[in-house]
Every structure is written in C-alpha cells, then in structure tokens.
C-alpha cells in the first residue's frame, strides 16, 4: 500500500499508467477493479469491445461492474465528463463510499484522435477534485505518441506501473490550460472561406451556415453546427471584443466554421468542459452546450484574438 504518498490522500486520485501488452494491462486493471469491489466501491469501465471482452473474462464477477461503451462515452471530452459524472453521482447519492473509473481516451494509437483530450485529462483534476473517486487512465505504451505521453505525464498526479508500484508524479502540472495542445491548422483554412460575415447576429450566422452547408454534411451534423454557431456567435458578441467574424468553409462532406473576436477568450481555463453553476443568466452554458454536440470543437487563442473552431463531417487525418 502507498499510504505515505501525498496525492493518494486527495478525495480524487487521478492516476495514469502505461502498459506494453495485454498481460500488463491485466496486471494493472484487475487489482484496481477487484480492490474497489472488495471495498464496496462501485466500478465503471469504459473500454472498446475488445478490451471489454478481455475484462469480462479476467474479472471474478464482471456482473458487479458497470461497463459503458467506450465509443459512445468518448464522443467528445465534455460529453465524457458529463456521462461519467451522471454515473458516479448516482452511486454516491445511493451511499457508495467512493467510485472507481477506468477507461481509455482516443488517440492515434487506438484509432482515435487526441485533440481536446489533453484539456479533459487536465480538467478532471479540478472538476472532480471534491469527489471520492479513483480514476485510472491506462495508455498503450507501444502505440502512444510522444506528444500524448507527455500530456499524460503532466496531467496525472499519480503514476502506476504494471509491477504494482504507485508514486507521486514529479512531472504533474496541475494547471488546466485553455486550448491545451496547439490544435493543428485545418488544411481548408488556407483557402478563401466560402462565406464570411462581420459582426453577424446569431440568426444571420445560422442562416448563412444553413445556406452554405446545406447538402455538404448530413442533416444531424448541420443541425449541430447551427446550434454551435448560434451559441458561439452570441458568446463572441456578449463576452468577446468586437469585431466578431464568422468564416465558413464548406466542401463535400465537410464544413469548418470559425467564430472569432479580437479578445483573449474566456478567463476560465475549463470553459466549455463544465456548465457554469448557479449563473443567473445561464452564461457559460452556451460553450458547454457546444462542446456536447457531435462536432469537433477547438478553442484557439492567439495574438490576433480568440477563435472557436467547429468542424463537422469527415475528419482530417488525426496527428496525435
């Protein structure tokens, strides 16, 4: 046991580890689950189909565990946070002494896309700090990129190994950074936008997007983009510094939208990842809502101002 380790005494213990094989993955995850169940702590696991199958074979009583589909859970970082919160809150409300969570966020190594998940890993240290949780984020050391590994090592206060060691992480940097890793430019941004609007109202931005993006992406994606552009234009007008600009690029199966203002963006580094509680005007809800949609959201802060980028439809190849 590691009772002397400072980070382990926090209510939320956010731990990472790297495995090099299924056997190492098993050596790390099975004790985490079995020890939790033995202590009366409900366990929630969010993995893909293959790993879920392995876990069901390895665990003493898989029926005691809540398995959630990793693909669904990890649609977007903000959705993963809300989904996990709903699940663990239910257990805590029912009197559980603590809850254990484990899952694997998307990155190129597992066929996903890591953009935005660096903010997720950093945000959990703040958002879940008051809860009696243990969350374990295991990454495949053979496929994880150096950039992702670096983020993982900076965002987890505790690191574990397949041999069972657990230690305070010297590299842990607890500040969640707005925008996180620099988002790669989208190639389409080098071309002239299909439409550009100066200081539009949310309604004008919605109408322009509907005209430009119609038939470029499926209806559900267009609906999500319309909601997202409406909320972000409103934010730019209310919270940003004029002028606000909307640029829309549309090509077959893909639409990219920039909503920019000349300000420095939200002061809250967790903006969008959690709704702002107890706000009489519901401010802060709009950016969170945008992050819940089935579109990729990036917050880009630069010397010229702040941009929310929304991307819907076919993805560009993932880099991380």
């Amino acid at each position, binding site marked *: 046991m590691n009772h002397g380790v400072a980070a382990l005494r926090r209510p939320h213990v956010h731990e990472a580890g790297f495995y090099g094989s299924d056997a190492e993955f098993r050596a790390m995850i099975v004790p985490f689950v079995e020890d939790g169940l033995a202590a009366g702590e409900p366990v929630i696991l969010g993995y893909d189909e293959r790993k879920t199958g392995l876990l069901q074979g390895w665990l003493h009583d898989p029926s005691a565990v809540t398995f959630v589909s990793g693909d669904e859970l990890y649609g977007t970082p903000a959705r993963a946070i809300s989904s996990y919160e709903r699940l663990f809150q239910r257990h805590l409300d029912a009197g559980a002494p603590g809850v254990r969570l484990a899952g694997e966020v998307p990155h190129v190594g597992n066929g996903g896309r890591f953009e935005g998940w660096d903010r997720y890993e950093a945000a959990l240290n703040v958002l879940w700090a008051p809860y009696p949780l243990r969350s374990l984020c295991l990454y495949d050391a053979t496929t994880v990129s150096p950039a992702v590994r670096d983020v993982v090592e900076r965002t987890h206060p505790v690191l574990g190994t397949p041999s069972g060691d657990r230690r305070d992480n010297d590299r842990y940097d607890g500040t969640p950074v707005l925008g996180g890793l620099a988002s790669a430019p989208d190639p389409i941004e080098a071309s002239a936008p299909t439409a550009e609007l100066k200081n539009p109202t*949310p*309604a004008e931005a*919605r109408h322009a997007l*509907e005209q430009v993006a119609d*038939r470029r992406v499926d209806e559900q994606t267009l*609906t999500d983009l*319309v909601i997202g552009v409406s909320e972000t234009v*409103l934010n730019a007008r209310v919270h940003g510094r004029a002028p606000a600009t909307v640029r829309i690029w549309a090509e077959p199966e893909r639409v990219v939208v920039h909503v920019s203002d000349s300000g420095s963006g939200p002061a809250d580094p967790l903006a969008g990842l959690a709704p702002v509680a107890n706000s009489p005007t*519901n401010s802060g809800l709009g950016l969170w809502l945008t992050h819940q*949609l089935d579109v990729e959201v990036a917050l880009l802060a630069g010397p010229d101002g702040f941009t929310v980028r929304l991307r819907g439809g076919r993805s560009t190849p993932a880099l991380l």
Partner: protein
Amino acid sequence: MRGLGVHDHVCWCFDTRAEFRARAAEFLADGLRAGQRVLYIAGGEPGALAAELRQVRGWDDALTSGAAGVASVEGTYTARAVVDPAQQVVTYAQLTEQALAEGFRGLRLAADATSLVRTADQVEAFARYEHLVDSYMASAPLSALCAYDRTELGQARIEQIACMHPIANSGAAAFRVHAGGRPGCAATVSGNVDAASVKLWTHALRWARPRPDSDDRLVLDAAGLEFISHRGLLELAEYARQRGGSVVLHDGPSSAARLTEVLGLSGVRVDPVRRRPRDGLRRAPDSERTR
C-alpha cells in the same frame, strides 16, 4: 397589402401617416371588392378621416351605403386608455355579426392603434387583446390591419406588439405567437427565439396564455418556428410546468429536438421533428417573409 383573406390579421409598422393611408386604402379596397364591410380607424376628425381614403374606388358611395365607415381613435378611446381585452373582442365580434346580418361577407378593419400602446400598461392589455382577437379571427370573418407608428413607438415597443400577430412587416418581430394553426394546438409559434428575443418571448407566452390540454400537454404548432435557443426552451418548459403540463412542439425544428436531448429537458418534446427540405427549394427565413 393586397390579396389577404377574410381571417387575416396583419401588423403593419409605418414611418409616415401617408404610408399608413396607402396601405389601409389597399387593404380596405380589397375588402369592399370582396363584399365585406370596412372600417377605417385613425386619429383625427371623422370628416377628415372620411376624406383621407377618397382614392379608394367607390369610397364615397360605400360611406353612404354603410359598406364603409370611419371612426376616430380619440372619439373611441380616452387618452392613454388601457383597453379591456375581452370587452374589446366582444365589441368587434358584435360588429362582425352585425355586418353578416346586414348581408356583408364579413368585417375588415384598418386601424392606427399607435395611441393604444404608448405605455407599458397599455401594451400589456393590448397584447392580450391582440391574441384574443386573433383567436376570434381564426374562425370568424373578421380581418384587420393593425398599424403602428414606428417613429413614435420605437423598435422595442413595435416588437412587443408585432410578435402577437400572425403576419407582420419584415424585421418587425423576430418571432410570433398567435392563434390558429393545426387543430389541437393551443397556439402557433414561428420565427426565431434566441438571445435577442428571449425576454420578449417570456412576456409573449404570458400575454397569449396558451393552456395545456386534458392530457396536460401544451401543444404548440411550431411548423414556422425556425430556431429556439436553449434559454427559449427553458422558459417555455417553465411556463408549461407552472400550468401543470409538458410542452409538445408540433413539427418543430430539428435543432429544438437536439437541444432538448443535449440538455436532458424532460418537459419538452418535439413531435414530429421537422426535417430540412431536401428538394433544393429552401424556405425564406421566416423573419423575411411578408405579404
């Protein structure tokens, strides 16, 4: 202002009295041609008002025969009068019945109601009246052109009153709440409800007072609703909750369905969801439609 039907209820915001007169003349000339009794209501002496519409073909004969009439706003209402919404509807219902009894096909009004919405109290009562009379018009042969002087009232006041009409000039109202629509619907909502208009939306719901049905469902015809923001939906859900019901947006936009899903709003349902037209013929944004 031509080609409107026997039930139509139009809000027209004007910048000059001459513009109002021209629109009223078109609207009432149409009514005379269709065999309706017409009534011109505006500020001024009745004699002067009668002379204002001489451009309408057969106007003088119509005045003589009783097919046309004029009324002075000052003669009908005291200054800053707050109308009694229900009584006002009874008055126009009686005038409509009388017109039918005398062989006309209905009653058509063109009224400059600017002086009736100058104060907040007046707007409160008049907005309620506009909704009640709209409900009456949906099934009776009464049609009206309600005109308001934009230069005197200002845009905010204009929006308050325009949003209670099924038809308004371009840009006068972001959204509208009115009567009529699909059978079984308590009211019809159309246009755009977003940050710029959500405060008025809350007022408009309370002016219109649509009520849940016997199944505790507040069903609104939303076929013309272009967009409603999360705050608009939250306000609507709260309005219905206070009246013991849940909301059904009939034929509402897919964005409203998606927002209720994302926010987990249990008190609002969009059923059925209106899909975007895929035939290449896009509807004009509702706020830009006018007649």
